[in-house]
């Protein structure tokens, strides 16, 4: 559905993203992950025609996405920064955006306004950071766009509203079977929602696979501290957590039959790692250098 071919973007002489080749397919929820300044927002801005790539092309359903009103009408992307006119009232924002998106669902938008308890008579400048995020979330979810992009969607939202948001994303996805891209730092929160993960580091794609495939690159062994220490002697450690006589260690490797056998012998448990731990492993400069 979205295809990025050899995308490179320079800011002056500094490369923001280099030679990116990516495809976002219809019917998946993607997690676009990366450290600060990794190039996530640059990729989103290039897809949405907000900035131009220095090299490369972007296609949406086979059509060139650059300066194309019709291709861009298939995407609604909320940004981390608030770029809507600050004097604009929430209800006016809903009205004006509806004019750009043929299938904008006003009824659903109003329902979300009530659900998130947002005062539609307020201007955007009077809203808190959290409510500004909510305003943009409502626009995106109600747009019914074929491609919905959320860039740091839960900025300033409390746990309750974050929960509501994730539920609404899943509901919307079930109804529309569209493409959803979520770019966030809160990796564990989206780990149960996203089906595919794209990890960007220093402007390059370093992982592009399903959540399960990404997690396969590591595993957690836990149990009695002495036994776990015995188990990890010859293995590459990624992360350690201990509590009293209990120790849980994330191992930086795929789990092998030997690992399973050793763990069973020592009466240890092997489980899947947290997505965040794998992410840290993949993007940590120190760890890569040590390897």
């Amino acid at each position: 559905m979205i295809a990025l071919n050899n995308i490179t973007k320079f800011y002056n002489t500094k490369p923001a993203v280099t030679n990116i080749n990516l495809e976002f397919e219809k019917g998946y929820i993607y997690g676009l992950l990366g450290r600060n300044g990794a190039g996530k927002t640059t990729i989103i801005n290039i897809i949405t025609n907000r900035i131009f790539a220095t090299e490369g092309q972007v296609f949406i359903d086979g059509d060139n996405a650059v300066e194309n009103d019709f291709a861009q009408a298939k995407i609604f992307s909320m940004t981390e920064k608030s770029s809507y006119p600050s004097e604009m009232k929430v209800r006016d924002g809903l009205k004006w955006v509806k004019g750009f998106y043929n299938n904008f669902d006003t009824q659903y938008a109003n329902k979300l306004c009530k659900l998130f308890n947002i005062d539609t008579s307020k201007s955007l400048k009077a809203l808190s950071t959290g409510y500004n995020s909510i305003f943009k979330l409502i626009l995106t979810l109600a747009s019914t766009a074929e491609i919905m992009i959320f860039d740091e969607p839960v900025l300033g939202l409390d746990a309750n509203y974050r929960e509501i948001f994730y539920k609404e994303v899943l509901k919307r996805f079930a109804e529309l079977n569209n493409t959803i891209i979520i770019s966030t730092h809160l990796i564990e929160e989206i780990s149960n929602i996203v089906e595919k993960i794209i990890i960007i580091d220093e402007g390059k794609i370093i992982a592009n696979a399903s959540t399960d495939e990404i997690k396969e690159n590591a595993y957690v062994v836990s149990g009695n501290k002495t036994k776990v220490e015995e188990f990890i002697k010859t293995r590459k450690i990624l992360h350690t957590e201990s509590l009293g006589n209990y120790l849980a260690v994330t191992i930086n490797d795929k789990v092998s039959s030997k690992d399973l056998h050793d763990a069973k012998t020592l009466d240890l448990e092997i489980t899947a790692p947290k997505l965040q731990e794998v992410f840290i492993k993949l993007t940590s400069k120190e760890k890569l250098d040590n390897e």
Partner: protein
Amino acid sequence: MNKTISKKKLLHLTKFHVRSTYYYLFIITGILLFNLLIAVLITSLDNTGESGSGSLDSVTLVHSFILGIVFFYSTFKFALLNGVSRRTYYLSSLLYLVIYSFFFTVITSITIVIAEAVTNTFTIYSLMYGYNFISMFIWLFLACLFFELLGWLISCVFYRTYKKARLIISVSLLLVIPIFVFINYLSNGAFGISVLNFISAIFGFNSTIPNPFIAMVTLLVLSLILAGSIFLLVRKAGIRE
């Protein structure tokens, strides 16, 4: 070549432009009526019959320039956020400025007609070309458009450049007058006379009776040059957050 400009988006964005700055029409109307009221008061208090109002059209031209400067920042971002291409944004903005130039001209012309009926009045146009309602209307419309485009161009230049470049541009503009004076001094005044002759010619003052139609053509050509320059700046502009 595939169609890439959506007429629906273009018209909706134009409507957004018009609605988001409609208060400018009230501001201009308010200022013009206030000036008119003061002129009427002064005329009624002054028995000599020599006092009156002047330069009502200058109020409109100044506000046209301000409108050109202020509308761009917020509407450009809003357009890009809603999947509108730069070309569509550019065409929509041109349409919007033409509409506003027309509104400004109508409001100002009506005020001038009323002012002429109730008090002594003069306008920039009448001082330069004498009085003819239709040619004044066309001249004012083109002058409004020119000043709006000039404001938009300045806004675009500042949007596309960074702090250092802005400083260089600002300083360069400040240096224009001293450089002009210096060259004029070196040429014993010939340079200044040539420039003034050129300006006089393009604004229709070279003949014994000033010709407003030459000024109209000049304003139209200058507006087209400005519009072309703006297009070059807008077509590659990115969102700046």
